[in-house]
C-alpha cells in the first residue's frame, strides 16, 4: 500500500484523539484518547519501518527492525503510564468524588 494512505490514517486517528482530549471532561476518557494517539504513532512507525525495509533491503536484510523495537518500547511505557495514571484517577475520585477534570481548578484560585 502507498505510504500516503498510512500517513493519512495515522494523522486522522491522532486528530480524533486530540479532539477527544479537548472536548471531553471525563478524566478516564481523556486518558483513553491519549492511548489512541499513542497507537496512531505506533501504526505510523510500523508502516515507515516496512517502507524503509523495502527500499534498503539490498543493503542490509534486517534493516527496519529498529522501528518495530521502538513500537515495543512505546507499548511498555504506555503500560507503565496507565497503571500510574489510573491510580491517580482513583485517588482523585476518592478526594473529590468525581472524575470531572473541571473540578480540578484549585490552582486557579
Amino acid at each position, binding site marked *: 500500500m502507498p505510504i500516503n494512505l498510512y500517513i493519512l490514517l495515522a494523522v486522522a486517528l491522532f486528530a480524533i484523539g486530540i479532539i477527544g482530549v479537548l472536548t*471531553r471532561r471525563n478524566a478516564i476518557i481523556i486518558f483513553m484518547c491519549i492511548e489512541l494517539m499513542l497507537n496512531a504513532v505506533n501504526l505510523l512507525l510500523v508502516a515507515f519501518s516496512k517502507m524503509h525495509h523495502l527500499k534498503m533491503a539490498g543493503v542490509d536484510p534486517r534493516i527496519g527492525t529498529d522501528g518495530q523495537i521502538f513500537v515495543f518500547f512505546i507499548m511498555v511505557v504506555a503500560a507503565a503510564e496507565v497503571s500510574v495514571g489510573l*491510580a491517580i484517577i482513583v485517588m482523585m475520585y476518592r478526594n473529590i468524588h468525581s472524575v470531572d477534570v473541571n473540578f480540578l481548578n484549585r490552582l486557579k484560585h
Partner: protein
Amino acid sequence: MSIIQILFWFLSVVALFSALMVITSKNPVYSVLWLIVTFFAISGHYILLNAQFLAIVNIIVYAGAIMVLFLFVIMLMNLNKETEPQKNRWLKMAGAIAGGCLLLVLVAALKDVGVKEKDTALVYEGGIGLIKNLGKELFSTYVVPFEISSVLFLSAMVGAVVIGKKE
C-alpha cells in the same frame, strides 16, 4: 482491487469509525469497548504489514491488560451512568474546531511531501516483523533498554501501590 487493498480499507474504516465512537459515546463503558475494537483494527493493520509480534503484543497488552484495567476502574467507581456534567457548548465546539484545524494542517502538509511512486509500505512480505528477528535484536543490541524497562515497570508498580493506598 486485490484482497490486500480490500482488507486495508475495511480495517481503516473500522478503526476510524470506532475511534469516533470512543469520543462520542456518553457512557464510559461503551467508550472502552469501542476502544478495544479500535485496537483490534490496528492489530489487523500490523498483521497486514507482517508485523506479527507487534500484532500479538498489541492484543495482549492493550486489549487484554490495559482495557481490562480501565473497565475495572470504571466498574469499581460506578461511573457507568450516561450523564456527563455538561457545561459550555461553545467550549466543546472550540475543541472540535481546534482538532479539525490540526487535522487539516497535517493533511495539507503531509499530502504529497516528496512521496514518490515507489514509497510503499511493504505489505505481507519481509521477515523483519517476525518474532525471531525481533527477539534476536531485542536481546543483543537493545538489551540495556530492555532491562531498564523492567526497572521502569517495577517503579510504576510501586508508584501505583503507593498512590492507591488508603492512608
